């Protein structure tokens, strides 16, 4: 079986439309981030307490809210968790912002526990997971995450500059920034919480997207060496088309595995799988419609500079 084996699409001809689509998606995403008042950072980054509870008898968010409010908890968010079929799982996530006073960190968990004990009975609920992060630890984790992202960027750029010409590296970084921007936009639109696991997912997307882009660029590098009589744009199109079967097949196998994880993975892992699915789709798109066009634009910009009279060196 063969798909797209002799494909001859003019990807670069539609690049302006791709720019528009990307720009629109980024604007929508950034707009969503602004409207939400920033990304939905989890307790790991903001500090605070997350309590994941499973109840044995039907209850409601409102009832739970009344219980914990009566116990003195304030500023809480209560989120019911649903299975992949959308059914209620009787599981709820409580998120409480950081409390300043000394007893804060453990106090909140204890308050929620005792409120549920009194309201529901000691044996009718189970604390599945508790995360309580002091504000300072949250700050540290946030700094670390940002630092990890930037460092991985820098090292990849150095590697690409070493293995390719600098403009390839530059184009790859543009594509990666595009992917990160879009992924953050999706994360905000879907209101996925940014946790350490989400950051890991974003870094994986960065790796994967670069992977895709590099495969195309590797072919571009090879085709440029062959010195066919064709324009830069034609060489790029040819390279994308030649690697198209691989691009699609690899994305397909990866996405299948991730969809299995998303559907079967349970409520804790689902946001992680969702971010990966979106990011890998975006990464595949960008390696075709963003990275190569960026390379073309850089190439043309260089040519213009060299053709210009101001650059007649003497």
């Amino acid at each position, binding site marked *: 079986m063969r798909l797209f*084996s002799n494909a001859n699409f003019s990807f670069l001809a539609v690049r302006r439309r791709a720019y528009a689509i990307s720009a629109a998606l980024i604007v929508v995403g950034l707009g969503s981030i602004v409207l939400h008042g920033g990304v939905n950072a989890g307790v790991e980054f903001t500090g605070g307490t997350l309590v*994941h509870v499973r109840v044995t008898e039907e209850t409601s968010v409102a009832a739970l809210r009344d219980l914990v409010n009566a116990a003195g908890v304030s500023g809480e968010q209560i989120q019911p968790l649903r299975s992949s079929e959308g059914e209620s799982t009787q599981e709820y996530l409580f998120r409480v912002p950081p409390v300043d006073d*000394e007893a804060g*960190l*453990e106090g909140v*968990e204890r308050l929620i*526990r005792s409120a549920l004990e009194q309201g529901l009975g000691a044996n009718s609920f*189970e*604390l*599945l*997971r*508790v*995360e309580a*992060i*002091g504000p*300072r*630890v949250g700050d540290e984790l946030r700094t670390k*995450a940002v630092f*990890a992202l930037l*460092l*991985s960027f820098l*090292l*990849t750029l150095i*590697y*690409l500059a070493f*293995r390719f010409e600098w403009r390839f590296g530059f184009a790859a970084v543009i594509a990666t920034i595009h992917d990160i921007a879009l992924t953050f936009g999706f994360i905000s639109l879907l209101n996925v919480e940014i946790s*350490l*696991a989400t*950051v*890991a997912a974003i*870094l*994986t997307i960065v*790796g*994967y997207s*670069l*992977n895709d882009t*590099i*495969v195309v660029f*590797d072919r571009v590098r*090879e085709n440029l060496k062959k010195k066919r009589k064709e324009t830069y744009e034609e060489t790029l199109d040819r390279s994308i088309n*030649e690697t198209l*079967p*691989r691009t699609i*097949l*690899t994305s397909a*196998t*990866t996405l*299948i*595995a*991730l969809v*299995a*994880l998303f*559907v*079967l*993975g*349970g409520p*804790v*892992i689902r946001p992680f*799988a969702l971010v*990966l699915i979106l990011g890998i789709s975006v990464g595949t798109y960008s390696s075709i419609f963003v990275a190569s066009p960026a390379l073309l634009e850089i190439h043309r910009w260089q040519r213009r500079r060299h053709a210009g009279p101001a650059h007649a060196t003497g």
Partner: protein
Amino acid sequence: MFSTVRWRVIWITLLVLLCGWALVPKEDADGNRIPPLQLGLDLQGGMHLAVEVDDSQAPPDADLEDAVERTLTTIRNRIDQFGVREPNIQRAGDRIIVELAGVQDPERAKEIVNRTAFMEFKVVTDGTSFLNALERIDRAIVNAVGADQLRPTALETQVDLGEVLGGRDTAPQAVPADTTLPDSAAVDPPPGAPAAAPDPPAAQDSAAAGRDSAAGAPGQQDGELRPLSALLRPGRIEGEFLVATQDRPTVESWLALPEVTAVIPNDITLHWGVEDVPAGGSTFVPLYVLDAEPLITGEELQDAGPANRDPTFNQPIVPFETTRRGARLFERGTARHVGDNMAIVLDNRVQSYAVIRGILSRNAQIELAPGASFQEAQDLALVLRAGALPMPIRIVEERTVGASLGEDSIRQGRMAFLIGIVAVVLLMIGYYRFAGVLAVGALVVYVILLLGGLAGLQATLTLPGIAGLILSVGMAVDANVLIFERIREELDAGKTPRTAVDAGFANALSAIVDANLTTLITGIILFQFGTGPVRGFAVTLCIGILASFFAALYVTRTFFMIYLNRRASSESVSI
């Protein structure tokens, strides 16, 4: 050519066997099964705590480094008492990380870690007032628990006791870290050295003789149940009793009954000791009867140690210093108790005791019994210093995962993993036919190498790690896809199968190397900066990339060689 293939097959087989062996469950010395893959706290359930020393109220010249080290000791002590399997307690900068797997009661675990160390110096009583109250205590236990509940235990224990009491030679042989406590002004050699021999104290015997039942005597006399008395036996000094280790929870629960606390005299308190006392083939835990009123508390303890040796007699000694107020209290308290034992109580447990050799004041020292090791002295110094810990501690990070959530995650992850693999297998075979089958063979090798590599490196499998596994299966075929597409192109260009395969592998190499190395960079950074679960993900990702390099470039290649060699005509290749 043939020999090359043969060697390749041998190498691959060896590696697969090695990794397969790493995945076979082993047993430890006690015959417990060790799972091949270590599960992270998020999968097996457990608790992760980060604890900080709060130096906000400490004097400006306080030594934070020392405080963290002392806190680490205190927390280790406490967790050991808590009885968690394989606790992981370590320093990370100025923080202390406590990881407890499978904790049943996280609330209590936190309480134990978080409590400020509480130290008291208390006089060990002669035990008389406790023995006098013992009959009432026994009756209170019978009334509270019910005679029917008690009878079987009492009888069983009676047999045990009979054996233990059978001969004096089964009495505790281990001499306790017998400590003496001279006034700093008078460091005399011990004249009639403090009770080092484990003779039952006379006072106790006489007390016992006067009553129809006492500690150490069989538990049932005149048909009356004496549950507590039956489980107590005389200790090595006055005011110390020994309880068989397995009876300790029972005795502890009895002593906590409100009916029982009501009849225990107000001027004494009961404290367990930290050490195990072996005797007659079983072990015992000491229970001490102490004056309720402490001589001084840790608040009055200014500093202790370091341990050194007595210049004249070369015995290990631990000097300590009290505050001015502590010195006054100490002088007044010890004046009435010269010759008595003083217990050092940390977090309600007796760490050690020593004879009060004279009136103690601001500078005192504890002299360890002859034969005590220097290590013991250092440990005691650390205990004293932990008691003098000037700074409270605070939990700054807590992650607790219930065991059931972990089980769900493993089950769901396993299912997703299997379905993901089956889908990828079907897709590869459907698309590449026989070459797809070869790729699937290489994928099988890949999975064995990956899991075996994780087990061999003793990496911890976390929930994001499982996600990484599933993701890497999807990505593992990427290298194969790159190679196969190349081979197809070369075949289209009119090359013979053998040359096409060779060219396909050669030309795909640069893309595979560049693409995987960038992902490897990301993985290494994640490992460096991540904690716990994220680190597990990074390890899976990195091992996955290395395994997929090997699987695609070496294993698939070998399979292709065998495939091409076996075919009579090499005019076509199924790809």
